[in-house]
């Protein structure tokens, strides 16, 4: 069998959005992995500027490019010289770029899965933020009739799934809530149920993957992203924050946010963020996007910018008000209206763009390629050791 690796690198020029709206240009980085014999990595990279405005943006995978096709042919085939054939030099049109369309169509049909976990003390606005992020009532509160706020005695994870659709793209969104976290007087080990849950999802996936007859598409319940809510105290991270993020940062991508940030002035916010970043570094906590997983220089530039502004200070709401003739999402107080999507007021738009518009696929990839693989390696080593110590016969892959 010929081992051919095709590497396509597309450098895209700008293209306007489908609706022909104003210069909304986004960065979109998609990496997909197809489950069939041929492993093909298609990288679509777009470099666009990101402008934050109040628009009704949707998830677009807008692209079009000037393709430079590089073909690397394996050395096993003698007589062939490797070289770069530029698209302009091809005689006639080969149609390689149509592969991108095929891939897009396939993934759109199959739909996406995204599992997001929200962690934080009661009353920090977790459910409201999730509803605001996905512009629908997807939180646990909105789904339980006669919901009453009560502090539960233990940490019980609850997950709610919805299928939301936008422009023909379907997404199965699962929100995992953690009521009871950090609410008790003694919060020791309140993170354990969460660690257990995350590992259980990895275990489920691993079992499926190791089956002899396994499904074409393994149902993915692994936690792709964990949003950790920090109360806006303005001081430092609290011991419980450090304990939680230390442990979970190793197994899942954590995105810390400052909740209910409308109680901090801009200066206080900057100082607070700086102190948090110092605290995180001092304790060796790695939050998303992790520096060591930056794939190349472009990624690093984008991610560096993000790393300099985390944790995002967010405010969430589902109420709309009229401001200057426009309908905006906001919180109305006696001294003004806090506009949630206004970048000068809070960083909700940054968070939304990070989570949904630019790094959603990356979050999934990091979970699959890094966190899951770490878990898998650990488990397989464990079972190998058991296998060797017990002298069991049989397939070493049976877990």
């Amino acid at each position: 069998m010929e081992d051919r690796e095709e590497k396509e690198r597309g450098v895209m020029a700008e293209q306007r959005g489908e609706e022909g709206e104003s210069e909304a240009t986004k960065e979109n980085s998609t990496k997909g992995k197809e489950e069939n014999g041929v492993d093909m990595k298609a990288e679509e990279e777009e470099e666009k500027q990101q402008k934050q405005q109040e628009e009704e943006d949707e998830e677009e995978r807008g692209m079009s490019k000037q393709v430079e096709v590089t073909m690397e042919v394996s050395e096993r085939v003698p007589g062939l010289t490797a070289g770069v054939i530029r698209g302009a030099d091809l005689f006639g049109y080969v149609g390689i770029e149509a592969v991108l369309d095929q891939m897009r169509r396939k993934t759109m049909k199959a739909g996406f899965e995204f599992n997001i976990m929200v962690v934080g003390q009661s009353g920090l606005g977790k459910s409201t933020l999730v509803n605001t992020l996905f512009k629908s009532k997807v939180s646990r509160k909105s789904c339980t009739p006669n919901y009453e706020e009560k502090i539960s005695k233990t940490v019980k994870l609850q997950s709610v799934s919805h299928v939301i659709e936008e422009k023909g793209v379907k997404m199965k969104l699962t929100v995992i809530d953690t009521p009871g976290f950090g609410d008790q007087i003694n919060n020791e080990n309140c993170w354990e149920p969460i660690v257990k849950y995350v590992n259980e999802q990895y275990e489920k996936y691993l079992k499926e993957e190791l089956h002899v007859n396994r499904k074409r598409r393994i149902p993915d319940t692994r936690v792709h992203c964990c949003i950790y809510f920090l109360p806006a105290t303005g001081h430092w991270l609290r011991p419980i924050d450090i304990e939680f993020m230390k442990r979970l940062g190793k197994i899942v991508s954590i995105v810390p946010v400052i909740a209910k940030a409308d109680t901090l002035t801009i200066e206080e916010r900057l100082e607070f963020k700086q102190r948090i970043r110092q605290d995180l570094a001092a304790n060796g906590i790695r939050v998303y996007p992790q520096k060591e997983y930056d794939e190349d220089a472009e990624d690093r530039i984008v991610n560096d910018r993000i790393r300099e502004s985390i944790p995002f200070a967010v405010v969430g709401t589902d109420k709309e008000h009229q401001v200057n003739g426009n309908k905006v999402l906001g919180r109305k107080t006696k001294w003004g209206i806090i506009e949630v999507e206004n970048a000068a007021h809070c960083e909700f738009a940054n968070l939304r763009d990070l989570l949904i518009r630019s790094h959603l696929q990356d979050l999934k990839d990091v979970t699959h390629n890094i966190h899951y693989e770490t878990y898998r390696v650990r488990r397989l080593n464990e079972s190998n050791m058991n296998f060797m110590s017990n002298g069991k016969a049989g397939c070493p892959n049976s877990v």
Partner: protein
Amino acid sequence: NTATTKEHREKEYVGFATLPNQVHRKSVKKGFDFTLMVAGESGLGKSTLVNSLFLTDLHKDRKLLNAEERISQTVEITKHTVDIEEKGVKLKLTIVDTPGFGDAVNNTECWRPITDYIDQQFEQYFRDESGLNRKNIQDNRVHCCLYFIPPFGHGLRPVDIEFMKALQDKVNVVPLISKADCLMPSEIKKLKERLREEIDKYGIKIYQFPDCDSDEDEEFKQQDRELKESTPFAVIGSNTVVEARGQRVRGRLYPWGIVEVENQSHCDFVKLRTMLIRTHMHDLKDITCDCHYENYRAQCIQTMTSKMNADKRVESPIPILPLSTPDVETEKLIKMKDEELRRMQQMLQKMQQQMHEQDL
């Protein structure tokens, strides 16, 4: 005729109606003291609020501990005293702060250092009161405890309930909703109702405003009613002065507007200040003296008498206070002091007898 009635009235006039003025003059000379405790987790704006209330900057060189240091931190008690003078009236204000409260992962009994502190102040006052030289007793008893409830929650949290219950019989507890600028008016209303319900439900005895006398005028009664209906107060504090509506006021500057601390439609800061300083300071002190301290004293004496009966000790009119952690050294000291007191007692008795004989 009018002359005679006037004369008549003057003859009937004794003149003790001037007593309040005399008291007033003496108190102004003597000055007042007031001890206020603030409790709540870090980052709820306690220090800022205290600064705003008393227009001082009590915590200028405060160092915020980072999380490493705070992991092993226990609850401390710190005291700051400041003398404030206004229109010739002196106030010696002591602020007792409780850093570390509620900050750890495991906060079991984190109020213990606080209740211990309050008890110690009572104990010290008890000793002083029962001592021989009572001229310059220092009153360090805590007159009021402001408890800061975070605005993030949906009501009372377990730690709030436990704390207030532990302190309700020792000090006047005034719960506050802190950092109220992150709540919309409807949310504040809901939270206040919820808190009042839960305080009732759990039987927490917070400080109650006394009912105003029936002969007060309507305006005062109306004010009083409004005050009572807006508890717990939702407060905002500020260390900075901003310009709002052409004036320089204490406030917080946000991109979406300016919060004015002293604007009654923004928060209840003015109500708190009025209540704490302008109208109810004396009442807070009275209740501390008449209620909380007396309870402590009665309890103390009871334990002592039962202990004495158990020990069958020689009865001494000067109470010997049981220490919380008795050790050999202090026991010795106490015994020595006991002896001294007894000797002095005997001397006094002798002197009294002599005087009595002289009179006869």
